[in-house]
């Protein structure tokens, strides 16, 4: 490294990642599956059946026919080479005897809240990164002597261990924590000793622990950048760090080149953002079979309306109204098209979402068969902050004509 790194880290940032979260939550419910390969990702029809003797019969992967994808796999299932995002049919070929469970997001959200509350009780500076991961700023909690030579960071290790055991006590689940001077390194090192791991590193550990990792492990170096790096002979983070900054800028542009140089040396100044509002809320569904906008109009219309209703209830439950509504289409050739429209009013109800999403959909090319349809609300605002007239709200007190009642 060409600059002297401070010996004492100025910050301690933890990245906490729940271990195989969805699958682990399911195992709490079905303990008999412990130690067995389990994948989550089926539909409701794949829920286990309780037999007369009280035991349960689980759906098996090799019986699966359809086009769902894996949401999570247990470590036992991952050993067969299956991973989240993989098609269930493909996974069935690798691990035919793995048990298949339907995803139960209500349950996962419940456990997500539980583990976050447990962490917050110890360390309140939390940044949400999703249902199963958070960043925690531990700087203020680290004992003063820990910043010095006390090896190996016993104070910060104690705090991280307390968080891990508190999460386990609250949920029965294990997590892996990476602690380092910044978010970038913590995210990388929380993975190093998964599951149930705890990894603490300082800048001094970067060459030994981080540089051997593939460059693609860094969040922000995607498939395209990895490919280009590989073509330039760079595979690991260390090789990237050895690259000259000017040369990187020439090859990747000034901004991205400078960023690559920075992250390769483990530098990242991003703060832990404790208060964040979601940028968008969306719902999408992959069809059982490809649908055509015209020939399957009725079926598509129903699914579309249902997505809008689900999105409306998400918005209302979370207390947001949206100004921009978008649609996402994936065609039978996996090409993705999105279209958005911004309304002149705040939208929170299903009818409003359906209307604007419908208009957005009209802007999209619809000749090709569709595989997936999604609806997204963007430009969000906390609904309570709006003047009441502004939120499209059903007038509860107005009675309706009996036009649609069954006679």
């Amino acid at each position, binding site marked *: 490294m060409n600059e002297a790194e401070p010996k004492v880290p100025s910050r301690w940032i933890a990245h906490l990642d729940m271990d195989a979260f969805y699958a682990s939550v399911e195992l709490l419910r079905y303990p008999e599956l412990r130690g067995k390969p389990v994948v989550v990702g089926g539909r409701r029809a794949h829920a286990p059946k309780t037999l007369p003797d009280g035991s349960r019969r689980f759906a098996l992967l090799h019986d699966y026919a359809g086009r769902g994808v894996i949401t999570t796999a247990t470590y036992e299932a991952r050993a067969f080479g299956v991973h989240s995002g993989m098609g269930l049919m493909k996974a069935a070929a690798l691990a035919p005897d793995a048990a298949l469970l339907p995803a139960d997001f209500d349950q996962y959200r419940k456990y997500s809240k539980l583990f976050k509350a447990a962490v917050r009780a110890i360390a309140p500076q939390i940044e949400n990164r999703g249902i199963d991961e958070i960043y925690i700023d531990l700087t203020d909690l680290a004992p003063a002597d820990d910043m010095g030579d006390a090896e190996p960071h016993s104070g910060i290790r104690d705090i991280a261990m307390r968080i891990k055991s508190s999460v386990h006590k609250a949920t029965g689940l294990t997590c892996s924590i990476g602690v380092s001077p910044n978010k970038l390194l913590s995210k990388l090192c929380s993975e190093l000793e998964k599951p149930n791991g705890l990894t603490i590193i300082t800048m001094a550990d970067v060459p030994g622990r981080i540089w051997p990792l593939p460059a693609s492990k860094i969040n922000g170096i995607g498939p395209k950048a990895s490919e280009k790096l590989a073509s330039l002979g760079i595979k690991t983070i260390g090789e990237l760090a050895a690259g000259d900054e000017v040369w990187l800028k020439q090859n990747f542009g000034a901004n991205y080149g400078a960023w690559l140089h920075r992250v390769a040396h483990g530098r990242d100044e991003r703060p832990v953002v404790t208060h964040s509002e979601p940028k968008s809320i969306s719902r999408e569904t992959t069809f059982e079979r490809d649908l055509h906008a015209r020939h399957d109009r009725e079926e598509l219309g129903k699914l579309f309306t249902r997505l809008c209703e689900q999105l409306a209830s998400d918005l209302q439950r979370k207390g947001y109204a949206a100004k921009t509504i978008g649609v996402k289409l994936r065609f039978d050739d996996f090409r993705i098209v999105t279209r958005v429209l911004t309304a002149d009013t705040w939208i929170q109800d299903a*009818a*409003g979402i*359906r209307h604007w999403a419908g208009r957005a959909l009209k802007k999209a090319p619809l000749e090709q068969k569709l595989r997936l349809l999604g609806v997204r609300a963007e430009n969000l605002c906390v609904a309570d902050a709006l003047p009441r*007239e502004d939120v499209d709200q059903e007038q509860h007190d*107005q*009675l*309706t*004509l*009996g*036009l649609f009642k069954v006679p």
Partner: protein
Amino acid sequence: MKLLNIERDTLLKPLQAVSGIVERRHTLPILSNVLLEIADSELNLLATDLEIQVATKASLDKSANAQAITVSARKLQDILRSLPDAATVSLETQESKLVLRAGKSRFNLQMLPAEDFPRLAQGTGEVATVSVAQKNLKRMLQLVQYAMAQQDIRYYLNGLLLLVDANKLTLVATDGHRLACISATLDEKQPRAEAILPRKAVLELVKLLGDTDDVVELQIQQNQVRSHFGSVDLLSKVVDGKFPDFTRVIPSNPPSRFVITRTELQQALQRASILSNEKFRGVRWVLTKDMLRIVCTNAEQEEAEEELEIDYSGEPLDIGFNVTYLLDVLNNLSSDQVECALGDANSSMLITVPGDENFKYVVMPMRI
């Protein structure tokens, strides 16, 4: 190439007739344009948003070369409008530009190829043809259009039901809370036909129909409604859906009824509504022997009260309504009197015009 010389108004009038449906923003750029087609001594104008298509024509003093161009409807209209009334306009094409000159003004407008201009396909299925005086259809539309839903998820309510049965033409609009329905007798018996005319087409028709006895011819087809009147030809796709059975929500004979001067009720409601809740717009009707008391309160606990003497011997009743729904119908009717017929506080009210069986307005109450 020279296109034509024309009086400002000879071009502006028909242009305004077709440009009303042109959307401000559209993904297909040519839809912002109007198609101008010259054939002999006629100028044909056409605009569309792919749901509705309006065509009209103007007569030219002398015949010109057959030509067709498309140019921004809104810009052409804005330019013509801002020219002096008596201006004469010359149009000529220079490559892909339309050059418009008037006096010392010159405008270069971008054109798009006329052959790319989309037109609605011919309708399919049986045609039921109905002829009505323009002013009568305009009046009928005005009496029901305000009850159409707007951007409702039940998309088939975002329009107006056109129903032809025997020698009767019926128009119905509802947003699920209130329903307006009007019928007229036709000169000749017709095969049964029905279609839902989309909201935009209804509003455009009301605008374009004249207050004359000249006839408008409606051609109702399974997927299209064509309205032909004067030199205007308005073609609209229909809303693809089933309109709910409206007859079952029209109460047959509500027991408590009274007749009241329309303007008296209208003005009392307008005054009272000043102190209604801005969001819910609720108004209370308290009916007792020969008395209608109208009460409005708002979130600040302010109160308005109106007392109207009526001839009423029905049950005492305390019922709430959205005052907007009441004012909508009273503002659009032109009769001296209206009849209100009620059941209980949870049943709909029927508003009719005494001596006129053709108009019915049903409004559901509001719990206040």
